[in-house]
């Protein structure tokens, strides 16, 4: 009877699969089932892979990187005894993507696609890695394969991303709306898409639509920190400082990302709470300390926040340059441009900024950064155009930066257009 639990589990899993698979369960339930299965049949590769996959989903929901490490250990065990196990290789590649090992992901997915050209996930991960390093043409081809194989939330949201980065905001919103309609069983997946859709609306100046999508995300997956941060950003744009702070604080209490600290600092200063603002600075420094302790060399988000604050500028430059050594996508060019500008290296900043703009990505911050750089280089006409473009996308995208953009534009023209 040793294999009886396996048999029962097989029947159960078959039944569960009848309802669309274990993804129907909540992630915690999924982990519990998978752990039971491993206890009963730990030598079975598929059983261990299931648990690793559940951990990766848990990581998505909690931002707790420890789950990636757990998944990696399980996958390594499987590959030790089953070296070619396909599902284990896929999970390994997903973990690598989480670790930003983009070149490796490109190589692995291309290799695996020779044996399994019809696995949509491979093309998705390949496209993701290519987008991260700025190889947009090849990313489009990879995403094309993915959506042909499996149209649905996972592929539509990637099409939306490609369109956004390459300057097609309307097409991006349309594709992401379809992704949202195709929502799967894991509420976090839908919430993720709703938040991303909210960002696209926000960046193109549609605050009401942004807000309703962030709110929908919270209804779908309560406690979803990016949705709280999104609401914080909308409130900040409307100058509702108290609500903005409350929402960012909730986001920060769940996962203390540097972006939340950066936003709170600005909001506390606006609310005349310098002590609280200073706390956020201390937090950013702690985040940086931890990063140094783990020999983390790249961090463009932190670099940009330091640059916005006009402090830790050498460190910001180090972080941004290291990131650029590693990947050259438009977001990295933008981070590098801004950090170079804050370090007074205007010519290099301009070169980087022009590369950030080459795809026409509708990010107000890109145009603001480029505009300020152009002004510093006394390119008045260009500066006016760029700053106006930032404000045209969203005149209130960031309370401090939008105000600065408007002031600079005024100074350059004498009157607001």
């Amino acid at each position: 009877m040793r294999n009886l639990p396996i048999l029962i589990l097989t029947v159960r899993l078959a039944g569960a699969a009848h309802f669309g698979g274990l993804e129907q369960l909540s992630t915690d339930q999924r982990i519990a089932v998978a752990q039971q299965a491993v206890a009963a049949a730990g030598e079975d590769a598929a059983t261990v892979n299931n648990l690793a996959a559940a951990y990766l989903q848990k990581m998505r929901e909690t931002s707790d990187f420890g789950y990636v490490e757990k998944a990696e250990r399980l996958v390594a065990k499987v590959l030790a005894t089953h070296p070619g196990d396909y599902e284990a290789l896929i999970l390994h590649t997903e973990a690598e993507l989480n670790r930003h090992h983009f070149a490796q992901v490109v190589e692995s997915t291309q290799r695996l696609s020779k044996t399994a050209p019809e696995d949509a996930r491979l093309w998705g991960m390949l496209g993701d890695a290519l987008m991260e390093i700025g190889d947009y043409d090849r990313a489009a081809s990879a995403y094309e394969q993915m959506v042909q194989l499996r149209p649905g939330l996972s592929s539509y949201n990637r099409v939306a991303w490609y369109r956004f980065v390459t300057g097609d905001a309307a097409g991006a919103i349309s594709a992401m709306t379809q992704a949202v309609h195709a929502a799967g069983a894991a509420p976090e997946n839908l919430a993720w898409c709703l938040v991303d859709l909210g960002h696209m609306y926000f960046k193109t100046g549609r605050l009401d639509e942004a807000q309703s999508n962030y709110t929908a995300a919270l209804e779908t997956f309560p406690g979803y920190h990016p949705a709280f941060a999104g609401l914080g950003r909308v409130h900040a744009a409307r100058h509702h400082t108290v609500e903005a702070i409350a929402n960012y604080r909730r986001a920060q209490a769940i996962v203390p990302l540097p972006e939340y600290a950066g936003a709170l600092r600005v909001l506390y200063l606006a609310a005349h709470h310098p002590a609280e603002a200073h706390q956020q600075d201390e937090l950013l420094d702690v985040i940086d300390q931890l990063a140094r302790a783990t020999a983390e060399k790249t961090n463009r988000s932190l670099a940009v926040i330091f640059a916005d604050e006009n402090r830790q500028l050498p460190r910001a430059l180090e972080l941004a340059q290291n990131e650029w050594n590693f990947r050259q996508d438009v977001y990295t060019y933008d981070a590098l441009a801004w950090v170079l500008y804050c370090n007074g290296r205007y010519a290099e900043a301009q070169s980087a900024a022009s590369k950030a703009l080459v795809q026409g990505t509708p990010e107000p911050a890109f145009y603001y950064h480029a505009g300020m750089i152009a002004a510093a280089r006394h390119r008045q006409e260009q500066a006016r155009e760029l700053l106006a473009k930032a404000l045209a996308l969203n005149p209130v995208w960031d309370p401090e930066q939008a105000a600065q953009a408007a002031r600079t534009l005024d100074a350059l023209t004498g009157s607001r257009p």
Partner: protein
Amino acid sequence: MLKRSTPFLAAVLAALLGAPVPAFAASHREAPLTALDHPADITDFFAFVSYDDPTKVTFLLNVDPLLEPANGPNYFPFDPEVLYTIKIDNTYDAVEDISFEFRFQTEIRAPGVYTGFIGAGAGIGGVIPPAVTALDGAGAAGLSLRQNYTVTMVQGSGDTAVRTDLTGGKKLFAVPSNVGPRTMPNYAALARQGIFSLGNGVRVFAGTVDDPFYIDLGATFDSANFRTGAFFTGSPLIMTAADDASTLNSAADTVSGYNVNTIAIEVPISMVTANGKATIGAWGATYRQQMTVRSAGPNQGSGPWVQVQRMANPLINEVIIGTGDKDKWSRSQPKDDSQFAAYDLDPVLAKAINTVFGLAVPPAPRTDLLPLVQYTTAITGDSSIPAGPIADLLRLNTGIQPAPAASRSRLALLAGDNAGFPNGRRVSDDVTDIALRVVAGALAGPPYNLYRLGDGVNSNDVPYQETFPYVAFAQSGRNRRHVDPGEPGCGNAVQNSSNDVLSTSSGSLAQGPCPVN
């Protein structure tokens, strides 16, 4: 490092150190990669000769499973971006000769209303509409979210297909979920308004209904792995003769109290058969549109349709096909299923049954399983019908009369009731038990057909209807009950002091406690 530590900072530090997030973690996209496609997910497909008219055949395509009846505010619309299809092969090449296509459209009729359906009595204060008693016109004011659909018949396939609109200019409304007795006071009457006659003997119904499937999935998932309650022989999964013969449940039905979305169509048999042959092969499939990555402008997504899911035999994908090939299977066509023959003819589950119970199972290759994947005389009764390619189809001999209710058995063909699975599939067929036994060799004849394998759940929690659409209407958000282990809803051995059997033929009306471990 820090001058002082405030409680706030300490708390955030604790979060950082306890669950260290690499600060870079936010700066890459991490889009969901393997999201399940809920609305396009086919959970069951049924095909059977209509009980009340043996000249007709009924197909049910069930999608979007495990719908919790209480889940407002919008409940469970069909997806307007999914193409739902039912396909029929009547030339025995596993390629569709006739298909029926369904497309849905959503109307938001009252944009300011926070919930899909609302209503009470005769209305309240001009704000709350009257209770919902109709799908259209008076009595439908509370249907703030409403769907209608089109039905298209396709003859042939590919570029030469001939498409005929069957909707006929009518508005076909989908039946919403059952919110509860206040909003929808006579739900059955409301749901019946969703049965539409399209002429030429065709009837359709689409909407949320009670999920007709029943199974014990070990609902809690955190207790011991299997049921050893009194009703089993002492060996889980092997039933006593009495419980096997019973219509009552020896274990809790995990699907009790849940709804599902169904698309039901009844057509004359003559519409789907050809060349005087009575047997057809059928399956269901869902599609989504491809999208071109590089496009400008809104309203994209009008690329060609791509199949995302298909189903014919129940549980084949789950039980038979290996994990790595499931996606490939979902995208592929039945006519190409010989690529999966290795799985079909040597199922892993059979080996497990053999190892665990010491029950001899037929040796591979399992030619006894061929009736599930080819046309065989066991179902067709006609040796002039070719076997056709190996293909996962539900094969239905429309010449076999439906079994009257009294002689209908949940074990169908295995109990001598040849009007059920694997001859087509009816909602009451216990496909879990049948599949277990078939995999263990029940179709191979003695000694392989003696194992009373089963999960202990023999019937649905609510009675089915004997007329179209043959399922119970949706359970209400207010009154539905999920029967969990330890709760009443099981048993045929429960009697009161007068030796009255407290249970009836319907699972959830039984009063015995369902086993816990």
